[in-house]
Protein backbone atom coordinates (compact mmCIF):
# COMPACT_ATOMS: atom_id res chain seq x y z
CA UNK A 1 0.00 0.00 0.00
CA UNK A 2 2.72 2.39 1.00
CA UNK A 3 4.22 2.42 -2.48
CA UNK A 4 1.01 3.68 -4.05
CA UNK A 5 1.31 6.91 -2.08
CA UNK A 6 3.31 9.26 -4.26
CA UNK A 7 4.93 12.25 -2.72
CA UNK A 8 5.23 13.20 0.94
CA UNK A 9 2.78 16.09 0.76
CA UNK A 10 -0.18 13.72 0.58
CA UNK A 11 0.67 12.40 4.03
CA UNK A 12 -1.65 14.23 6.40
CA UNK A 13 0.84 13.92 9.27
CA UNK A 14 3.55 15.83 7.40
CA UNK A 15 3.93 19.48 8.33
CA UNK A 16 3.50 20.88 4.86
CA UNK A 17 2.05 24.25 3.88
CA UNK A 18 -1.50 22.92 4.28
CA UNK A 19 -1.12 21.42 7.75
CA UNK A 20 -2.12 24.61 9.53
CA UNK A 21 -3.37 22.83 12.67
CA UNK A 22 -7.13 23.02 12.17
CA UNK A 23 -7.24 19.64 10.41
CA UNK A 24 -5.93 17.72 13.46
CA UNK A 25 -8.34 19.49 15.77
CA UNK A 26 -11.23 18.55 13.49
CA UNK A 27 -10.08 14.98 13.59
CA UNK A 28 -9.89 15.19 17.38
CA UNK A 29 -13.44 16.44 17.46
CA UNK A 30 -14.65 13.56 15.34
CA UNK A 31 -12.73 11.10 17.51
CA UNK A 32 -14.09 12.51 20.73
CA UNK A 33 -17.62 12.68 19.36
CA UNK A 34 -17.44 9.08 18.15
CA UNK A 35 -16.08 7.84 21.46
CA UNK A 36 -18.68 9.83 23.41
CA UNK A 37 -21.49 8.46 21.26
CA UNK A 38 -20.23 4.91 21.69
CA UNK A 39 -19.88 5.27 25.44
CA UNK A 40 -23.36 6.80 25.59
CA UNK A 41 -24.86 4.00 23.55
CA UNK A 42 -23.12 1.26 25.54
CA UNK A 43 -24.10 2.95 28.80
CA UNK A 44 -27.68 3.38 27.62
CA UNK A 45 -27.88 -0.29 26.75
CA UNK A 46 -26.09 -1.40 29.91
CA UNK A 47 -28.72 0.13 32.17
CA UNK A 48 -31.64 -2.01 30.88
CA UNK A 49 -29.38 -5.04 31.16
CA UNK A 50 -28.61 -4.20 34.78
CA UNK A 51 -32.05 -2.96 35.83
CA UNK A 52 -33.83 -6.08 34.53
CA UNK A 53 -32.48 -7.84 37.61
CA UNK A 54 -34.30 -5.50 40.01
CA UNK A 55 -37.73 -6.62 41.35
CA UNK A 56 -40.23 -6.85 38.50
CA UNK A 57 -43.61 -5.10 38.48
CA UNK A 58 -45.60 -8.15 39.55
CA UNK A 59 -43.13 -8.87 42.36
CA UNK A 60 -43.62 -5.34 43.66
CA UNK A 61 -47.41 -5.64 43.30
CA UNK A 62 -47.56 -8.60 45.70
CA UNK A 63 -46.01 -6.50 48.39
CA UNK A 64 -48.79 -6.08 50.99
CA UNK A 65 -50.90 -8.54 53.02
CA UNK A 66 -53.70 -8.42 55.57
CA UNK A 67 -53.66 -10.50 58.74
CA UNK A 68 -56.35 -11.40 61.25
CA UNK A 69 -54.95 -11.05 64.79
CA UNK A 70 -57.63 -13.15 66.52
CA UNK A 71 -55.65 -16.25 65.50
CA UNK A 72 -52.84 -15.40 67.92
CA UNK A 73 -53.18 -16.29 71.61
CA UNK A 74 -51.38 -14.23 74.28
CA UNK A 75 -47.76 -15.39 74.63
CA UNK A 76 -47.91 -16.94 71.18
CA UNK A 77 -46.16 -16.02 67.96
CA UNK A 78 -47.45 -16.74 64.45
CA UNK A 79 -45.13 -16.68 61.47
CA UNK A 80 -46.53 -15.76 58.07
CA UNK A 81 -44.79 -15.29 54.77
CA UNK A 82 -44.55 -11.72 53.57
CA UNK A 83 -42.48 -10.69 50.55
CA UNK A 84 -40.81 -14.10 50.65
CA UNK A 85 -39.65 -13.50 54.20
CA UNK A 86 -41.06 -14.60 57.54
CA UNK A 87 -43.20 -12.03 59.35
CA UNK A 88 -43.43 -12.43 63.14
CA UNK A 89 -46.77 -11.57 64.73
CA UNK A 90 -46.26 -11.84 68.48
CA UNK A 91 -48.97 -11.42 71.07
CA UNK A 92 -47.01 -10.32 74.13
CA UNK A 93 -47.99 -10.98 77.74
CA UNK A 94 -47.97 -8.05 80.23
CA UNK A 95 -44.78 -9.50 81.77
CA UNK A 96 -43.04 -9.50 78.41
CA UNK A 97 -44.11 -5.91 77.73
CA UNK A 98 -42.89 -4.87 81.19
CA UNK A 99 -39.53 -6.55 80.59
CA UNK A 100 -39.17 -4.68 77.30
CA UNK A 101 -40.14 -1.30 78.77
CA UNK A 102 -37.82 -1.78 81.76
CA UNK A 103 -34.84 -2.00 79.39
CA UNK A 104 -35.79 1.09 77.36
CA UNK A 105 -32.81 2.98 78.73
CA UNK A 106 -30.40 0.09 79.12
CA UNK A 107 -27.16 0.15 77.16
CA UNK A 108 -28.63 -0.75 73.75
CA UNK A 109 -26.68 -1.26 70.54
CA UNK A 110 -29.50 0.21 68.44
CA UNK A 111 -31.34 2.42 70.98
CA UNK A 112 -35.13 2.49 70.63
CA UNK A 113 -37.88 2.48 73.23
CA UNK A 114 -40.50 -0.24 73.22
CA UNK A 115 -43.15 2.41 72.46
CA UNK A 116 -41.34 3.36 69.26
CA UNK A 117 -41.60 -0.23 68.09
CA UNK A 118 -45.35 -0.73 68.66
CA UNK A 119 -48.55 1.22 67.84
CA UNK A 120 -50.03 3.45 70.56
CA UNK A 121 -52.40 1.49 72.77
CA UNK A 122 -51.46 -1.77 71.05
CA UNK A 123 -48.37 -2.66 73.08
CA UNK A 124 -49.37 -6.34 73.16
CA UNK A 125 -48.84 -6.62 69.39
CA UNK A 126 -45.28 -6.78 68.15
CA UNK A 127 -45.01 -7.07 64.37
CA UNK A 128 -41.51 -7.79 63.06
CA UNK A 129 -39.69 -8.90 59.95
CA UNK A 130 -38.40 -12.27 61.07
CA UNK A 131 -34.94 -12.09 59.59
CA UNK A 132 -31.88 -11.63 61.75
CA UNK A 133 -30.21 -8.33 60.95
CA UNK A 134 -26.87 -10.12 60.88
CA UNK A 135 -27.11 -12.38 57.83
CA UNK A 136 -30.80 -13.08 57.50
CA UNK A 137 -31.48 -16.34 59.36
CA UNK A 138 -34.82 -16.82 61.10
CA UNK A 139 -34.43 -16.38 64.90
CA UNK A 140 -36.29 -18.81 67.16
CA UNK A 141 -38.91 -17.37 69.47
CA UNK A 142 -38.43 -17.53 73.24
CA UNK A 143 -34.73 -18.28 73.00
CA UNK A 144 -31.82 -16.35 74.51
CA UNK A 145 -31.49 -14.89 77.98
CA UNK A 146 -33.96 -12.01 77.33
CA UNK A 147 -36.85 -14.29 76.38
CA UNK A 148 -37.17 -12.63 73.00
CA UNK A 149 -35.47 -14.42 70.13
CA UNK A 150 -32.27 -16.32 69.60
CA UNK A 151 -30.64 -16.63 66.18
CA UNK A 152 -29.13 -20.10 65.75
CA UNK A 153 -26.79 -19.07 62.96
CA UNK A 154 -24.22 -16.96 64.76
CA UNK A 155 -25.78 -16.48 68.16
CA UNK A 156 -27.53 -13.09 68.10
CA UNK A 157 -29.88 -12.50 71.05
CA UNK A 158 -32.95 -10.21 70.86
CA UNK A 159 -35.18 -9.06 73.73
CA UNK A 160 -38.99 -9.12 73.97
CA UNK A 161 -39.10 -5.91 71.96
CA UNK A 162 -36.98 -7.50 69.21
CA UNK A 163 -34.03 -5.27 70.08
CA UNK A 164 -30.53 -6.61 69.57
CA UNK A 165 -28.85 -7.32 72.91
CA UNK A 166 -25.95 -9.68 72.18
CA UNK A 167 -24.11 -11.29 69.27
CA UNK A 168 -22.99 -10.09 65.85
CA UNK A 169 -26.22 -8.53 64.52
CA UNK A 170 -25.96 -4.73 64.23
CA UNK A 171 -29.63 -3.70 64.32
CA UNK A 172 -32.96 -4.41 66.03
CA UNK A 173 -35.36 -6.73 64.22
CA UNK A 174 -37.06 -4.52 61.64
CA UNK A 175 -40.59 -3.26 62.27
CA UNK A 176 -42.31 -3.19 58.86
CA UNK A 177 -44.72 -0.42 57.85
CA UNK A 178 -48.15 -1.63 58.95
CA UNK A 179 -51.44 -0.23 60.13
CA UNK A 180 -54.47 -1.43 62.06
CA UNK A 181 -57.47 -1.73 59.73
CA UNK A 182 -59.64 -2.59 62.75
CA UNK A 183 -58.98 -3.75 66.31
CA UNK A 184 -58.26 -7.27 65.09
CA UNK A 185 -56.91 -6.77 61.60
CA UNK A 186 -53.64 -5.36 60.32
CA UNK A 187 -52.32 -4.53 56.87
CA UNK A 188 -48.60 -5.01 56.37
CA UNK A 189 -46.68 -3.26 53.58
Amino acid at each position, binding site marked *: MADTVVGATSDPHASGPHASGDDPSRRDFINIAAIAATVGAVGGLAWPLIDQMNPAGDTLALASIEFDLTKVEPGQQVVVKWRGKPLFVRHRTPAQIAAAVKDDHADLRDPQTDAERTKPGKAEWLILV*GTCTHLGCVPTVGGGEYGGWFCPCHGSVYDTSGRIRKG*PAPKNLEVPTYSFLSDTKIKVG
Partner: protein
Amino acid sequence: MSGHSTYEPKTGFERWLDTRLPIIRFMNDTALDFPTPKNLNYWWTFGGILALMLGIQIVTGIVLAMHYVPHVDYAFNSVERIRRDVNYGWLIQFMHANGASMFFLAVYVHIFRNLYYGSYKAPREVLWILGCVIYLLMIITAFMGYVLPWGQMSFHGAVVITNLIGALPVVGKSITTWLWGGFAVDDPTLNRFFSLHYLMPFVIAGVVILHIWALHVPGNNNPKGVDVKSKADTVPFHPYYTVKDGFAICVFLLMYATFVFYMPDVLGDAINYVKANPLVTPQHIVPEWYLLPFYAILRAVPNKLMGVILMFAAIAVLFILPWLDTSKVRSMRYRPTARLYLGIFFLACLVLGFCGANPPDQPILGHEPSGFMLLDADINSIVWLSRIGALYYFAYFLLVMPILGLTETPLPVPEGISEPVLSHPAAAPTGAAAAPEKRG
Protein backbone atom coordinates in the same frame (compact mmCIF):
# COMPACT_ATOMS: atom_id res chain seq x y z
CA MET B 1 3.22 -20.33 21.24
CA SER B 2 6.71 -19.19 22.05
CA GLY B 3 9.96 -20.32 20.55
CA HIS B 4 10.20 -21.86 17.14
CA SER B 5 7.86 -24.55 15.96
CA THR B 6 8.99 -28.12 15.33
CA TYR B 7 5.93 -29.05 13.35
CA GLU B 8 6.42 -30.45 9.83
CA PRO B 9 3.15 -30.98 7.91
CA LYS B 10 3.30 -34.47 6.46
CA THR B 11 0.35 -34.87 4.14
CA GLY B 12 -0.89 -32.56 1.41
CA PHE B 13 -3.99 -31.74 3.43
CA GLU B 14 -1.93 -30.78 6.48
CA ARG B 15 0.21 -28.46 4.33
CA TRP B 16 -2.93 -26.91 2.84
CA LEU B 17 -4.49 -26.39 6.26
CA ASP B 18 -1.25 -25.15 7.81
CA THR B 19 -1.16 -22.12 5.50
CA ARG B 20 -4.79 -21.31 6.26
CA LEU B 21 -5.43 -22.20 9.91
CA PRO B 22 -2.27 -23.55 11.57
CA ILE B 23 -4.28 -25.36 14.21
CA ILE B 24 -2.40 -28.66 13.99
CA ARG B 25 0.87 -26.75 14.38
CA PHE B 26 -0.62 -25.03 17.41
CA MET B 27 -1.71 -28.32 19.00
CA ASN B 28 1.65 -29.88 18.28
CA ASP B 29 3.59 -27.02 19.81
CA THR B 30 1.43 -26.68 22.92
CA ALA B 31 0.52 -30.26 23.74
CA LEU B 32 2.96 -32.65 22.06
CA ASP B 33 6.37 -31.19 21.47
CA PHE B 34 6.27 -28.55 24.17
CA PRO B 35 9.66 -28.64 25.92
CA THR B 36 9.00 -29.47 29.58
CA PRO B 37 11.51 -29.63 32.45
CA LYS B 38 12.60 -33.24 32.86
CA ASN B 39 12.30 -33.29 36.66
CA LEU B 40 8.58 -32.59 37.21
CA ASN B 41 7.06 -34.72 39.99
CA TYR B 42 3.48 -35.85 40.56
CA TRP B 43 2.44 -32.51 42.04
CA TRP B 44 2.66 -31.27 38.45
CA THR B 45 -0.08 -33.61 37.28
CA PHE B 46 -2.91 -31.67 38.92
CA GLY B 47 -3.19 -29.14 36.10
CA GLY B 48 -4.28 -31.93 33.78
CA ILE B 49 -6.60 -33.31 36.45
CA LEU B 50 -8.20 -29.86 36.80
CA ALA B 51 -8.78 -29.56 33.06
CA LEU B 52 -10.45 -32.96 33.10
CA MET B 53 -12.64 -32.04 36.07
CA LEU B 54 -13.80 -28.86 34.34
CA GLY B 55 -14.73 -30.98 31.33
CA ILE B 56 -16.63 -33.47 33.50
CA GLN B 57 -18.56 -30.69 35.28
CA ILE B 58 -19.54 -29.13 31.96
CA VAL B 59 -20.69 -32.41 30.38
CA THR B 60 -22.60 -33.68 33.43
CA GLY B 61 -23.99 -30.17 34.02
CA ILE B 62 -25.40 -29.88 30.51
CA VAL B 63 -27.11 -33.24 30.97
CA LEU B 64 -28.55 -32.20 34.37
CA ALA B 65 -29.86 -28.99 32.80
CA MET B 66 -31.94 -31.11 30.40
CA HIS B 67 -33.98 -32.41 33.35
CA TYR B 68 -33.65 -29.73 35.98
CA VAL B 69 -36.48 -27.18 36.52
CA PRO B 70 -35.37 -23.81 37.94
CA HIS B 71 -38.53 -22.95 39.84
CA VAL B 72 -39.04 -22.80 43.62
CA ASP B 73 -41.95 -25.25 43.41
CA TYR B 74 -40.23 -27.81 41.19
CA ALA B 75 -36.46 -27.49 41.61
CA PHE B 76 -36.15 -29.79 44.63
CA ASN B 77 -38.42 -32.44 43.14
CA SER B 78 -36.75 -32.24 39.76
CA VAL B 79 -33.37 -33.07 41.30
CA GLU B 80 -34.96 -35.97 43.21
CA ARG B 81 -36.50 -37.11 39.94
CA ILE B 82 -33.10 -36.96 38.25
CA ARG B 83 -31.75 -39.23 40.97
CA ARG B 84 -34.59 -41.72 40.96
CA ASP B 85 -36.28 -41.78 37.60
CA VAL B 86 -34.12 -40.34 34.85
CA ASN B 87 -32.06 -43.07 33.15
CA TYR B 88 -28.62 -43.01 34.76
CA GLY B 89 -29.64 -39.73 36.36
CA TRP B 90 -28.29 -40.95 39.70
CA LEU B 91 -24.86 -41.40 38.12
CA ILE B 92 -24.81 -38.04 36.41
CA GLN B 93 -26.07 -36.20 39.49
CA PHE B 94 -23.57 -37.88 41.83
CA MET B 95 -20.77 -37.24 39.35
CA HIS B 96 -21.68 -33.56 39.23
CA ALA B 97 -22.18 -33.04 42.97
CA ASN B 98 -19.03 -34.99 43.94
CA GLY B 99 -17.19 -33.62 40.91
CA ALA B 100 -17.38 -30.15 42.44
CA SER B 101 -15.64 -31.45 45.57
CA MET B 102 -12.97 -33.26 43.53
CA PHE B 103 -12.45 -30.12 41.45
CA PHE B 104 -11.78 -28.11 44.61
CA LEU B 105 -9.58 -30.82 46.10
CA ALA B 106 -7.44 -30.72 42.96
CA VAL B 107 -7.32 -26.92 42.89
CA TYR B 108 -6.14 -26.81 46.51
CA VAL B 109 -3.35 -29.29 45.79
CA HIS B 110 -2.44 -27.24 42.73
CA ILE B 111 -2.35 -23.99 44.73
CA PHE B 112 -0.26 -25.47 47.55
CA ARG B 113 2.11 -26.94 44.93
CA ASN B 114 2.62 -23.38 43.67
CA LEU B 115 3.16 -22.05 47.18
CA TYR B 116 5.77 -24.72 47.92
CA TYR B 117 7.73 -24.45 44.69
CA GLY B 118 7.40 -20.65 44.36
CA SER B 119 5.74 -20.94 40.97
CA TYR B 120 4.02 -17.57 41.42
CA LYS B 121 7.31 -15.66 41.30
CA ALA B 122 8.73 -13.84 38.29
CA PRO B 123 8.28 -14.45 35.42
CA ARG B 124 5.01 -16.27 36.21
CA GLU B 125 3.01 -13.53 38.03
CA VAL B 126 0.35 -13.22 35.32
CA LEU B 127 -0.01 -16.98 35.20
CA TRP B 128 -0.57 -16.99 38.98
CA ILE B 129 -3.08 -14.13 38.86
CA LEU B 130 -5.08 -15.88 36.14
CA GLY B 131 -5.11 -18.93 38.41
CA CYS B 132 -6.51 -16.79 41.24
CA VAL B 133 -9.21 -15.51 38.86
CA ILE B 134 -10.15 -19.11 38.00
CA TYR B 135 -10.33 -20.01 41.69
CA LEU B 136 -12.59 -17.03 42.43
CA LEU B 137 -14.88 -17.93 39.50
CA MET B 138 -14.98 -21.54 40.75
CA ILE B 139 -16.14 -20.34 44.16
CA ILE B 140 -18.92 -18.25 42.63
CA THR B 141 -19.96 -21.10 40.32
CA ALA B 142 -20.04 -23.70 43.09
CA PHE B 143 -21.97 -21.38 45.39
CA MET B 144 -24.66 -20.81 42.77
CA GLY B 145 -24.73 -24.50 41.87
CA TYR B 146 -25.32 -25.44 45.48
CA VAL B 147 -28.43 -23.22 45.53
CA LEU B 148 -30.02 -25.05 42.59
CA PRO B 149 -31.27 -28.24 44.36
CA TRP B 150 -33.27 -25.86 46.62
CA GLY B 151 -32.82 -27.80 49.83
CA GLN B 152 -32.74 -26.16 53.26
CA MET B 153 -28.99 -25.57 53.13
CA SER B 154 -29.19 -24.33 49.53
CA PHE B 155 -31.74 -21.74 50.50
CA HIS B 156 -30.37 -20.53 53.81
CA GLY B 157 -26.79 -20.60 52.52
CA ALA B 158 -27.92 -18.30 49.72
CA VAL B 159 -29.66 -16.03 52.25
CA VAL B 160 -26.58 -15.73 54.43
CA ILE B 161 -24.13 -15.16 51.57
CA THR B 162 -26.27 -12.62 49.69
CA ASN B 163 -26.85 -10.79 52.97
CA LEU B 164 -23.08 -10.42 53.30
CA ILE B 165 -23.21 -7.86 50.53
CA GLY B 166 -25.85 -5.99 52.49
CA ALA B 167 -23.11 -5.20 54.99
CA LEU B 168 -21.62 -2.67 52.58
CA PRO B 169 -22.48 0.87 53.62
CA VAL B 170 -25.00 2.91 51.54
CA VAL B 171 -25.26 0.65 48.46
CA GLY B 172 -25.40 -2.71 50.26
CA LYS B 173 -29.16 -2.98 50.53
CA SER B 174 -29.92 -2.01 46.93
CA ILE B 175 -27.31 -4.47 45.67
CA THR B 176 -28.88 -7.37 47.60
CA THR B 177 -32.36 -6.48 46.33
CA TRP B 178 -30.89 -6.32 42.84
CA LEU B 179 -29.25 -9.73 43.27
CA TRP B 180 -32.45 -11.24 44.64
CA GLY B 181 -34.78 -9.63 42.12
CA GLY B 182 -37.27 -9.30 44.97
CA PHE B 183 -37.45 -8.78 48.72
CA ALA B 184 -35.87 -12.10 49.62
CA VAL B 185 -34.15 -15.09 48.05
CA ASP B 186 -36.99 -16.41 45.92
CA ASP B 187 -37.94 -17.62 42.46
CA PRO B 188 -36.21 -14.79 40.53
CA THR B 189 -33.02 -15.52 42.48
CA LEU B 190 -33.12 -19.23 41.69
CA ASN B 191 -33.69 -18.52 38.00
CA ARG B 192 -30.79 -16.14 37.60
CA PHE B 193 -28.48 -18.37 39.62
CA PHE B 194 -29.28 -21.19 37.21
CA SER B 195 -28.57 -18.96 34.21
CA LEU B 196 -25.25 -17.81 35.68
CA HIS B 197 -24.29 -21.26 36.94
CA TYR B 198 -24.64 -22.48 33.38
CA LEU B 199 -22.60 -19.58 32.03
CA MET B 200 -19.69 -19.38 34.46
CA PRO B 201 -17.93 -22.66 33.64
CA PHE B 202 -17.54 -21.47 30.07
CA VAL B 203 -16.04 -18.22 31.32
CA ILE B 204 -13.70 -20.38 33.42
CA ALA B 205 -12.78 -22.36 30.32
CA GLY B 206 -11.88 -19.07 28.60
CA VAL B 207 -9.63 -18.02 31.46
CA VAL B 208 -8.06 -21.49 31.45
CA ILE B 209 -6.98 -20.86 27.86
CA LEU B 210 -5.31 -17.60 28.92
CA HIS B 211 -3.78 -19.47 31.88
CA ILE B 212 -2.20 -22.05 29.58
CA TRP B 213 -1.03 -19.34 27.20
CA ALA B 214 0.64 -17.56 30.12
CA LEU B 215 2.20 -20.89 31.10
CA HIS B 216 3.69 -21.49 27.69
CA VAL B 217 5.50 -18.19 27.47
CA PRO B 218 7.90 -18.73 30.44
CA GLY B 219 7.37 -22.53 30.45
CA ASN B 220 6.90 -24.74 33.53
CA ASN B 221 8.56 -24.13 36.82
CA ASN B 222 10.06 -27.32 38.35
CA PRO B 223 10.78 -28.84 41.77
CA LYS B 224 14.23 -27.25 41.91
CA GLY B 225 12.77 -23.87 41.02
CA VAL B 226 15.75 -23.00 38.78
CA ASP B 227 15.44 -21.84 35.18
CA VAL B 228 15.72 -24.24 32.25
CA LYS B 229 19.22 -23.65 30.80
CA SER B 230 19.33 -25.81 27.69
CA LYS B 231 17.50 -28.48 25.73
CA ALA B 232 19.20 -31.07 27.94
CA ASP B 233 17.03 -29.88 30.83
CA THR B 234 13.79 -30.64 29.02
CA VAL B 235 11.86 -33.51 27.47
CA PRO B 236 8.98 -33.20 24.98
CA PHE B 237 5.58 -33.13 26.68
CA HIS B 238 4.52 -36.19 24.69
CA PRO B 239 5.04 -39.02 25.53
CA TYR B 240 6.78 -38.21 28.81
CA TYR B 241 4.14 -36.11 30.54
CA THR B 242 1.08 -37.31 28.68
CA VAL B 243 1.80 -40.70 30.23
CA LYS B 244 2.64 -39.36 33.67
CA ASP B 245 -0.47 -37.13 33.68
CA GLY B 246 -2.51 -40.04 32.35
CA PHE B 247 -1.44 -42.28 35.21
CA ALA B 248 -2.20 -39.60 37.80
CA ILE B 249 -5.61 -38.99 36.22
CA CYS B 250 -6.41 -42.71 36.53
CA VAL B 251 -5.52 -42.74 40.23
CA PHE B 252 -7.51 -39.56 40.81
CA LEU B 253 -10.52 -40.97 38.95
CA LEU B 254 -10.39 -44.09 41.15
CA MET B 255 -10.74 -41.91 44.22
CA TYR B 256 -13.50 -39.86 42.56
CA ALA B 257 -15.32 -43.07 41.60
CA THR B 258 -15.06 -44.31 45.19
CA PHE B 259 -17.05 -41.28 46.29
CA VAL B 260 -19.54 -41.47 43.43
CA PHE B 261 -20.28 -45.18 43.83
CA TYR B 262 -19.76 -45.95 47.51
CA MET B 263 -20.37 -42.76 49.47
CA PRO B 264 -22.02 -40.18 47.24
CA ASP B 265 -23.46 -38.24 50.16
CA VAL B 266 -20.65 -38.07 52.70
CA LEU B 267 -19.38 -34.73 51.44
CA GLY B 268 -22.84 -33.17 51.41
CA ASP B 269 -25.12 -32.09 54.22
CA ALA B 270 -28.12 -34.27 55.08
CA ILE B 271 -30.31 -31.22 55.74
CA ASN B 272 -30.16 -30.43 52.03
CA TYR B 273 -32.48 -33.38 51.48
CA VAL B 274 -35.18 -31.30 53.16
CA LYS B 275 -36.94 -28.95 50.76
CA ALA B 276 -36.23 -25.25 51.29
CA ASN B 277 -38.49 -23.56 53.84
CA PRO B 278 -37.98 -19.80 54.15
CA LEU B 279 -39.72 -19.75 57.54
CA VAL B 280 -37.40 -22.17 59.35
CA THR B 281 -33.64 -21.87 59.52
CA PRO B 282 -31.65 -25.07 60.10
CA GLN B 283 -29.97 -25.20 63.50
CA HIS B 284 -26.56 -24.88 62.00
CA ILE B 285 -25.71 -23.34 58.65
CA VAL B 286 -22.51 -24.52 57.00
CA PRO B 287 -21.17 -24.17 53.47
CA GLU B 288 -19.64 -27.06 51.53
CA TRP B 289 -16.29 -28.24 52.94
CA TYR B 290 -14.21 -26.36 50.39
CA LEU B 291 -15.46 -22.97 51.59
CA LEU B 292 -15.31 -23.63 55.34
CA PRO B 293 -12.04 -21.73 56.04
CA PHE B 294 -13.45 -18.52 54.57
CA TYR B 295 -16.66 -18.99 56.53
CA ALA B 296 -14.60 -19.33 59.72
CA ILE B 297 -12.78 -16.07 58.95
CA LEU B 298 -16.15 -14.37 58.41
CA ARG B 299 -17.42 -15.50 61.79
CA ALA B 300 -14.19 -14.75 63.64
CA VAL B 301 -14.97 -11.03 63.56
CA PRO B 302 -17.78 -9.63 65.73
CA ASN B 303 -18.37 -6.71 63.35
CA LYS B 304 -20.46 -7.65 60.32
CA LEU B 305 -18.76 -5.36 57.78
CA MET B 306 -15.25 -6.19 58.99
CA GLY B 307 -16.03 -9.91 58.80
CA VAL B 308 -17.11 -9.55 55.20
CA ILE B 309 -14.09 -7.45 54.31
CA LEU B 310 -11.69 -9.94 55.91
CA MET B 311 -13.32 -12.85 54.12
CA PHE B 312 -12.86 -11.20 50.74
CA ALA B 313 -9.37 -10.05 51.73
CA ALA B 314 -8.43 -13.68 52.38
CA ILE B 315 -8.88 -14.32 48.66
CA ALA B 316 -7.67 -10.91 47.49
CA VAL B 317 -4.34 -11.34 49.26
CA LEU B 318 -3.55 -14.27 46.96
CA PHE B 319 -3.53 -11.93 43.97
CA ILE B 320 -0.65 -9.84 45.31
CA LEU B 321 1.40 -12.74 46.65
CA PRO B 322 4.09 -12.45 43.92
CA TRP B 323 4.97 -9.03 45.33
CA LEU B 324 4.69 -10.00 48.99
CA ASP B 325 7.26 -12.77 48.78
CA THR B 326 10.64 -11.04 48.75
CA SER B 327 12.75 -14.19 48.37
CA LYS B 328 14.45 -14.78 45.04
CA VAL B 329 14.68 -18.53 45.69
CA ARG B 330 11.63 -20.23 44.21
CA SER B 331 11.63 -23.77 45.56
CA MET B 332 11.14 -24.31 49.28
CA ARG B 333 13.48 -27.29 49.01
CA TYR B 334 16.17 -24.71 49.63
CA ARG B 335 14.21 -22.61 52.13
CA PRO B 336 13.88 -24.75 55.28
CA THR B 337 12.54 -21.92 57.44
CA ALA B 338 9.95 -20.86 54.88
CA ARG B 339 8.97 -24.52 54.55
CA LEU B 340 8.17 -24.62 58.25
CA TYR B 341 5.98 -21.51 58.06
CA LEU B 342 4.20 -22.91 55.00
CA GLY B 343 3.55 -26.11 56.95
CA ILE B 344 1.95 -24.09 59.73
CA PHE B 345 -0.04 -22.17 57.12
CA PHE B 346 -1.40 -25.46 55.80
CA LEU B 347 -2.38 -26.43 59.36
CA ALA B 348 -4.00 -23.03 59.89
CA CYS B 349 -6.19 -23.66 56.83
CA LEU B 350 -7.25 -27.05 58.23
CA VAL B 351 -7.95 -25.51 61.64
CA LEU B 352 -10.03 -22.77 60.00
CA GLY B 353 -11.90 -25.45 58.08
CA PHE B 354 -12.64 -27.25 61.35
CA CYS B 355 -13.83 -23.97 62.92
CA GLY B 356 -16.09 -23.21 59.95
CA ALA B 357 -17.78 -26.59 60.37
CA ASN B 358 -18.67 -26.08 64.05
CA PRO B 359 -20.88 -23.61 65.94
CA PRO B 360 -18.95 -20.53 67.12
CA ASP B 361 -19.61 -20.97 70.84
CA GLN B 362 -18.75 -24.67 70.94
CA PRO B 363 -15.87 -25.52 73.31
CA ILE B 364 -12.73 -26.98 71.74
CA LEU B 365 -11.31 -28.88 74.73
CA GLY B 366 -13.79 -30.97 76.67
CA HIS B 367 -17.51 -30.25 76.65
CA GLU B 368 -17.59 -27.27 78.97
CA PRO B 369 -16.57 -23.67 78.29
CA SER B 370 -13.63 -22.52 80.42
CA GLY B 371 -15.76 -19.85 82.07
CA PHE B 372 -13.06 -17.34 81.24
CA MET B 373 -14.26 -14.63 78.86
CA LEU B 374 -11.66 -12.90 76.74
CA LEU B 375 -13.29 -9.78 75.29
CA ASP B 376 -16.61 -11.04 73.92
CA ALA B 377 -16.21 -14.82 73.87
CA ASP B 378 -15.14 -17.73 76.02
CA ILE B 379 -11.48 -18.50 75.55
CA ASN B 380 -12.25 -22.19 75.06
CA SER B 381 -14.43 -21.66 71.99
CA ILE B 382 -14.37 -22.02 68.25
CA VAL B 383 -14.48 -18.21 67.99
CA TRP B 384 -11.06 -17.82 69.55
CA LEU B 385 -9.57 -20.71 67.64
CA SER B 386 -10.78 -19.14 64.37
CA ARG B 387 -9.27 -15.83 65.41
CA ILE B 388 -5.89 -17.44 65.93
CA GLY B 389 -6.20 -19.26 62.61
CA ALA B 390 -7.28 -16.12 60.76
CA LEU B 391 -4.48 -14.12 62.33
CA TYR B 392 -1.90 -16.61 61.14
CA TYR B 393 -3.52 -16.81 57.69
CA PHE B 394 -2.98 -13.10 57.13
CA ALA B 395 0.32 -12.91 59.01
CA TYR B 396 1.75 -15.58 56.74
CA PHE B 397 1.14 -13.49 53.64
CA LEU B 398 1.62 -9.99 55.04
CA LEU B 399 4.48 -10.54 57.53
CA VAL B 400 6.21 -13.89 57.10
CA MET B 401 6.51 -13.77 53.30
CA PRO B 402 7.97 -10.25 53.05
CA ILE B 403 10.25 -10.46 56.10
CA LEU B 404 11.52 -14.00 55.77
CA GLY B 405 12.72 -13.45 52.21
CA LEU B 406 15.03 -10.71 53.48
CA THR B 407 16.27 -12.37 56.67
CA GLU B 408 16.58 -16.10 56.00
CA THR B 409 19.67 -17.88 54.61
CA PRO B 410 18.58 -20.35 51.98
CA LEU B 411 20.46 -23.62 51.37
CA PRO B 412 22.75 -23.67 48.30
CA VAL B 413 20.63 -23.69 45.15
CA PRO B 414 21.76 -25.88 42.23
CA GLU B 415 23.02 -24.17 39.09
CA GLY B 416 20.55 -25.85 36.82
CA ILE B 417 18.11 -28.72 36.53
CA SER B 418 20.72 -31.22 35.37
CA GLU B 419 23.44 -30.27 37.86
CA PRO B 420 23.33 -31.42 41.47
CA VAL B 421 24.48 -29.14 44.26
CA LEU B 422 28.25 -29.54 44.10
CA SER B 423 29.53 -28.58 47.49
CA HIS B 424 32.01 -31.48 47.30
CA PRO B 425 32.84 -32.13 43.64
CA ALA B 426 33.89 -35.69 44.51
CA ALA B 427 30.39 -36.52 45.69
CA ALA B 428 28.91 -36.06 42.25
CA PRO B 429 29.78 -39.36 40.53
CA THR B 430 28.53 -41.52 43.40
CA GLY B 431 25.29 -39.57 43.60
CA ALA B 432 24.10 -38.75 40.13
CA ALA B 433 25.93 -41.20 37.91
CA ALA B 434 25.74 -44.32 40.04
CA ALA B 435 22.03 -44.26 40.58
CA PRO B 436 20.86 -45.39 37.10
CA GLU B 437 23.06 -48.50 37.28
CA LYS B 438 21.61 -49.50 40.62
CA ARG B 439 18.14 -49.10 39.21
CA GLY B 440 19.23 -51.45 36.43
